[in-house]
């Protein structure tokens, strides 16, 4: 049995959500939605899991904290202790107040940059990548729902899309 891609194009984000809800209720899986802006509440309807990027940011941030601590301990306490203006240098703990600003900056630096690049690689967004949106209008004002279905289900799905206000339905 051959598969068909159905492109349901909506003009309105609320109608899009109605469509997604109706399809979900009938057990039809939406493969992908392309939209010009984030549609809140859609993720749960089409089964997009909550992203774990915030967790990675936390891990990266802790890494940054550790790296800065290690660096300053090595340079200021272990390798070449220096008495600067009588500030204590005989142990990391005693000198730590002076190290807090750079520890903080390093935490933010690592968390922000590494999270950004994790996002870019995870979503495969890199200079020169060919965009995957099937219709150029989806970055302007159209919302495209992509469904892959068996031939026998096509008519039913098209019906659902039209019923919820899809302005165009294309079969590919």
């Amino acid at each position: 049995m051959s598969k068909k891609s159905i492109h349901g194009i909506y003009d309105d984000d609320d109608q899009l959500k109605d469509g997604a809800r109706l399809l979900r209720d009938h057990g039809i899986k939406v493969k992908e939605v392309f939209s010009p802006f984030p549609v809140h509440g859609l993720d749960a309807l089409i089964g997009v899991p909550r992203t774990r990027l915030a967790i990675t940011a936390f891990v990266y941030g802790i890494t940054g904290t550790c790296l800065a601590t290690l660096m300053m301990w090595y340079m200021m306490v272990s390798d070449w202790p220096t008495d600067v203006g009588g500030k204590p240098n005989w142990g990391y703990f005693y000198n730590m107040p002076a190290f807090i600003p750079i520890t903080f900056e390093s935490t933010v630096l690592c968390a922000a940059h590494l999270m950004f690049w994790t996002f870019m690689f995870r979503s495969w967004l890199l200079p020169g990548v060919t965009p995957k949106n099937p219709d150029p209008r989806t970055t302007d004002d159209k919302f495209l729902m992509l469904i892959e279905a068996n031939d026998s289900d096509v008519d039913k799905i098209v019906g659902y899309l039209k019923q919820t206000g899809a302005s165009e339905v294309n079969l590919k």
Partner: protein
Amino acid sequence: MHQESAIREPLILGDNVTYHQITEDIARPIEGKANKWWYLVFGIAMAAFLWGFACICYFIGTGIGAWGANKTVGWAWDITNFVWWIGIGHAGTLISAVLLLFRQKWRMAINRSAEAMTIFAVMCAAMFVVMHTGRPWLDYWLFPLPNQFGSLWTNFNSPLLWDVFAVSTYFSVSLIFWYMGLIPDFATIRDRAKKPLAQKIYKILSFGWSGRARDWSRFEEVSLVLAGLSTPLVFSVHSIVSMDFATSIVPGWHTTIFPPYFVAGAIFSGFAMVLTLLIICRKVLGLENYITIKHIEYMNIVIIVTGSLVGVAYLTELFIAYYSGVMYEQYAFLNRATGPYWWSYWGMMTCNVISPQLFWFKKIRTSIIATFILSIVVNIGMWFERFVIIVTSLHRDFLPSSWTMYSPTFIEIGFFIGTIGFFFVCFLLFARVFPVIAQSELKMIVKSSSEKHRKINKQNQHH
């Protein structure tokens, strides 16, 4: 759907606003041709930049003895201008990060250009830091590099080194925050582009964004986390800049209120610069429906708050100088107000403490002309503030025999003018090739905050 209270003023004006209309309005300056005013201003800015560049070449060749700084006044225009620019740079991140955490919808029309302004202002600030070392080709010594470069590591006890880390972190994090927001908007421009060259360029700039639901969900999460990270960052940067002064023992600098006082001053000057730029931008680019009088009023309210904080800080400083009983501290402040640089002190007081109080009048804070003039006054005042703190504290130090005066040479003035030129060159180019409003964000609030939907909701309620 979330609906706002009907008494809230709409943030997007116009009766025919649609998603497509927003795209059209924001793409117009990019796709159209620049008018003669753009070329005129760009030409002036470019000339200023080139003049500054020539001055930089001159003092790199001869050394920074070409500046007016001397043995007593070792920091002068260089650090004044550095702090001024970095302060201006604070509004962008404040608008995009702090206001995002507070869910302020009005930030959406102004965050993109404010962040661009941040990035260009921090670049200008960096030029002063790089050059004031005197031998900029050795600036890599600022980084913690191995001992072969000398016998010591960098000194992590020094606020000057904290500053290196803070400013570079701030710049790079602001840059990715800004760029990430631009990616979906570049995709919009790419998908509209007719010319092959534009298609190619915007395809590269947009990183292949296609607006999948999964990408949007990640995008929003990353924006939120970046905002959470940038919020303490923006406060830390100017706190650390203030520690360059506060941790010293110079009377007038050795003050514990410096960190909050500098942060308030930075936000104050940053919002003033955002207003200066956006008042022109909205007119020239025809974005009056998106950057409305209400936006200007909100920014003016931030200016009243931060301006008043700065005023309180000035008075606290004066009182503490008196109350401390330390004669050097007392003299430093007496000398600021009545010494040879009295004009800069009173200039600062007038511009920063008195003038923003005019915004208590609704007529003034909703007037475009008044706001424009006052925004420039505030920026002049904030420049004077840094000049007062730096030069008047230094020029009469502990040893009266080394008391001296400072005045800038034309090379230094040229350098400053050059950075202003650079800033405007960057901003004008930005306004021509980048989407100046975060359109994907703006489209999200059409249904809750536009004038058109307000009316539709009202009609529905009547039926």
